[in-house]
């Protein structure tokens, strides 16, 4: 049979198309048994699968897909645990969700592509892959939603400018201490997705910002010839010393990643702890790496190490890497012929622990996380609180408040310590359902209500321009001093010194002492003291520069008013209420106003210097503003807006006041914790049964107060036992029974002694009797 040339050409094209499939098959070469890591001298390849020549004028960033693909199956890897949140239908035990945080609106919304209880799917919030990557790419490993197919890209995205965020193999496997997680985060912020891997690995230096380029820019366009100052196209300058003459680069690869690589995204530390007091996990201290237990093959289906994982993932070997799998010789492992005690895991003796505890508690309940305190311990996690990114600006945040430990039953019915976060978001209540609002929707409706500090900050900023002011301008309100910080926000500190009894006192601070900005002076004198006159004049001129002010600045003292009129300083009689102290104010048509509105002052008083971000008054105003914005859009249905925070739902009632109530959406989101594992001496129960079983033990009766961005007295409050599904009264009585245990032990001891003695006597007597019988028979 003869083939036409065209058929042969098509056949060759078909074979070419299949080549990756063949390549995949080729990669399934079994391990040869050698335990060394091969030297990775490999050529870098760009996203077009072309070898990178570092001396070229505009070299492209390397693509891990094409650089690593020749030996490692990128397709299989991309189905791994760190990349498959969106694509997999097996999500396993709940883990820490991503938390969409917006400080301005007091929103912290747990989101995840994984089907875990309490979290929102990104689609519910209208988050596209693009937005998700921009928000959380800082702590993502690349791949997954960061690398969407062309048909999965939303119209508003800029993937063509930024490139896709490929799996960053070096984020975990780079053994070099130059691997920089901070650099990765900066590049994500700049939308330099395709350059992030090369920048973070220090293979080259990346400049330019894709975020500043027009949406029509493409990698083919190269550098921007029209702008060398602002809209500079991203570029990479490779470190040429890293390349050999064959354009190969040595990758210092670690087959089992170093802990630092894992901890970049998985650190958890108590919020109030000093670094030098921070303990490492006992396993780390023993020289065990994260990847020693959290193993995976090329599929990157990493063992998470929780009980039940082996059944969920149909991976029997997973059960050998749980706490029990390693430390306890459980039948399951023996049956499968796998021995416990891996890496020298000691067998726990568990003296004085009744066996029921091993059955009903997870190992982590006593050995992991923070010890239960009267109040939950607030911790910071890398992903929630943006830890581990270092630069000029501070990236880490106190908000959201992640707390631990609360004990909750896992799928095996065992009490397991969990971390929790209370969601906070603005939402629209329809029936019983609440659909969350995106922060920008709230910002649009609320406007300046969200920024009470800005008015004060602007005034303080203006006052700092007063010439010859021997200190920093501040104001005192409700016993606290407020000053401007470097970020243009307010810092608050307590003040116990004496100040005039005026609501709002303007002063300047020098060497921790306050002096009035405009001191008292002889107001009856015909001629003002020159220094006073200059100070008043300078102050008023400075205030004149405050933007958006509709009123003129003035100083009222006694029955006189001092202001600048048409550029001239003038003193006039004041017909209004006389002031006992020079009062700085805004003036319009004989109406005087405080320099800072009362609403803003109250909001400042309740939020500045505290972890809370919003006051109840602000919430009320914002809810009203949302309803008004809705009404102005001639919406057919009257929607009710609510704010979820501090474990409660806040809404405006019929009387127009803010009321709080419980709602399922305000329930906390929990996920089990496993690390840090504490040493035996610090485990729960080391001091005896009363560590947990007492009238008011922290284990059962810790106060769980919902933490959130709202300064309110209506926060949800619970006792720790409510999370366990156990009765509080019973646990209290049971705890009390431990006071009687010593007596019970004595009773049992005496009883056993008595019974034993009588039985021995009887035994001896019977023996004697039987011997006698035998004698008689003889």
């Amino acid at each position, binding site marked *: 049979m003869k083939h036409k040339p065209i058929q042969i050409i098509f056949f060759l094209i078909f074979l070419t198309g299949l080549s990756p499939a063949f390549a995949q098959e080729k990669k399934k070469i079994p391990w040869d048994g050698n335990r060394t890591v091969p030297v990775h001298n490999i050529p870098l390849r760009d996203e077009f699968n072309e070898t990178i020549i570092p001396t070229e004028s505009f070299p492209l960033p390397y693509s891990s897909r094409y650089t690593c693909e020749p030996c490692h199956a990128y397709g299989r890897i991309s189905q791994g645990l760190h990349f498959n949140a969106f694509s997999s239908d097996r999500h396993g035990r709940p883990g820490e969700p991503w938390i969409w945080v917006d400080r301005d609106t007091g929103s912290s919304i747990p989101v995840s592509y994984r089907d875990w209880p309490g979290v929102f799917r990104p689609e519910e919030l209208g988050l596209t892959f693009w937005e998700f990557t921009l928000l959380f790419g800082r702590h993502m490993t690349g791949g997954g939603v960061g690398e969407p197919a062309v048909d999965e890209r939303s119209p508003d995205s800029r993937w063509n400018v930024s490139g896709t965020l490929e799996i960053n193999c070096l984020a975990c496997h780079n053994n070099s201490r130059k691997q920089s997680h901070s650099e990765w985060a900066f590049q994500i912020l700049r939308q330099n997705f395709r350059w992030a891997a090369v920048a973070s690995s220090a293979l080259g230096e990346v400049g330019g910002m894709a975020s500043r380029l027009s949406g029509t820019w493409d990698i083919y366009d190269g550098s921007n010839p029209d702008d060398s100052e602002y809209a500079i196209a991203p570029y990479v300058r490779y470190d040429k010393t890293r390349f050999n003459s064959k354009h190969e680069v040595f990758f210092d690869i670690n087959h089992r990643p170093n802990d630092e690589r894992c901890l970049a995204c998985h650190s958890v530390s108590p919020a109030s702890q000093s670094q030098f007091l921070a303990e490492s996990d006992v396993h780390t201290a023993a020289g065990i790496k994260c990847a020693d237990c959290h193993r995976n093959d090329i599929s990157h289906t990493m063992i998470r190490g929780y009980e039940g994982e082996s059944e969920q993932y149909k991976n029997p070997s997973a059960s050998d890497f749980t706490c029990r799998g390693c430390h306890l010789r459980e039948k399951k492992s023996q049956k499968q012929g796998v021995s416990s005690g891996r890496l020298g895991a000691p067998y726990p003796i568990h003296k004085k622990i009744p066996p029921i505890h091993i059955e009903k508690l997870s190992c982590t309940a006593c050995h992991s996380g923070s010890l239960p305190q009267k109040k939950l311990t607030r911790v910071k996690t890398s992903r929630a609180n943006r830890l581990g990114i270092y630069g000029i600006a501070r990236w880490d945040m106190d908000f959201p408040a992640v707390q631990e430990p609360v004990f909750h039953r896992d799928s095996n019915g065992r009490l397991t310590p969990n971390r929790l976060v209370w969601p906070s978001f603005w939402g629209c209540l329809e029936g019983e359902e609440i659909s969350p609002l995106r922060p920008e929707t709230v910002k649009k409706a609320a406007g300046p209500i969200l920024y009470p500090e800005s008015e004060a900050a602007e005034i303080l900023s203006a006052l700092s321009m007063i010439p010859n002011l021997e200190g920093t301008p501040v104001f005192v309100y409700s016993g606290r001093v407020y000053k401007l910080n470097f970020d243009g926000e307010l810092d608050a500190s307590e003040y116990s010194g004496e100040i005039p009894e005026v609501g709002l006192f303007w002063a300047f601070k020098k060497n921790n002492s306050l002096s009035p900005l405009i001191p008292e002076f002889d107001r009856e004198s015909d001629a003002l003291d020159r220094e006073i006159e200059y100070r008043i004049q300078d102050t008023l001129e400075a205030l004149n520069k405050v933007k958006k002010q509709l009123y003129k600045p003035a100083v009222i003292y006694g029955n006189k008013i001092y202001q600048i009129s048409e550029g001239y300083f003038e003193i006039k009689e004041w017909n209004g209420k006389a002031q006992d102290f020079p009062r700085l104010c805004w003036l319009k048509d004989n109406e005087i106003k405080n320099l800072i509105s009362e609403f803003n002052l109250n909001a400042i008083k309740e939020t500045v210097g505290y972890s809370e971000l919003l006051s109840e008054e602000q919430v009320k105003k914002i809810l009203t503003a949302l309803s008004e914005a809705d009404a102005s859009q001639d919406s057919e249905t009257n929607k009710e807006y609510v704010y979820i925070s501090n474990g409660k739902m806040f809404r405006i009632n019929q009387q127009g006041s803010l009321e709080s109530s419980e709602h399922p959406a305000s329930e906390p989101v929990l996920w089990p914790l496993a690390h840090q594992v504490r040493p035996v001496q610090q485990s729960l129960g080391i001091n005896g049964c009363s560590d947990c079983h007492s009238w008011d033990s922290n284990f059962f009766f810790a106060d769980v107060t919902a933490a959130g961005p709202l300064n309110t007295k209506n926060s949800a409050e619970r006792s720790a036992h409510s999370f366990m599904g156990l009765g509080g009264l019973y646990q209290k009585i049971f705890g009390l029974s431990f006071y009687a245990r010593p007596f019970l032990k004595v009773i049992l001891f005496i009883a056993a002694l008595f*019974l034993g003695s009588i*039985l021995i006597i009887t035994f001896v007597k019977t023996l004697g009797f039987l011997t006698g019988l035998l004698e008689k028979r003889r």
Partner: protein
Amino acid sequence: MFSMISFVSFISVAAFLVTFSYTKQKKAKKESPDKKQAQNFSDWLVSGLRSFFKTSLKNRIKKINRKHLISELSITEKIIWGGLVFSFLYLFLSGFFFSLFSLRQMFGVPLLFHIVLGGLFAVFLCVCLFLSAEKFSFSLSFSFKNILFWIFMLSGLFLAGTSLCMMVPLFTYRTQLFLFELHRYSALTATLAAVLFLYTVFSNNEKRKNRG
């Protein structure tokens, strides 16, 4: 495993006692086995059960009292024996209910009472032993009843001992598991011994001799 063994033990003992009673009664009436033995047995069982359920608890207690002269016991003896029976009955019911009918081990209020009544049981057991040890001495008679009595006491010792050992910080997890099993099997032994003991006591047709 324990549940299965317990279940089989209880069924076996019940079957044994029923068959034994039937045979004993036949022998007493000097009836010879015939072809309708199965029919006779079922009739006997049904009538026995009917009379058991027809008789009120009060009457039954009266009957036992009449037969065994319980009312002639001193108030202290009544308290002691009553306490022993009551505490043992509760320990048996709470312990075996969770073993046989629940997937969970004992928990909650039943556990709390199990611990409290366990202590009381130990005390009552000691007193009963103190009062009756001589009476059940093998030197007087080497009867089945005496053997059961001492088996019950020995099980009681194991029950008290294992409870105590599980409460003191001396034993490892594995040992504690063993102690727990030992506790359960001791409880089973004690129960079976108590049942057989009571049967031997109450099935005895001779009236208890008046102590006066």
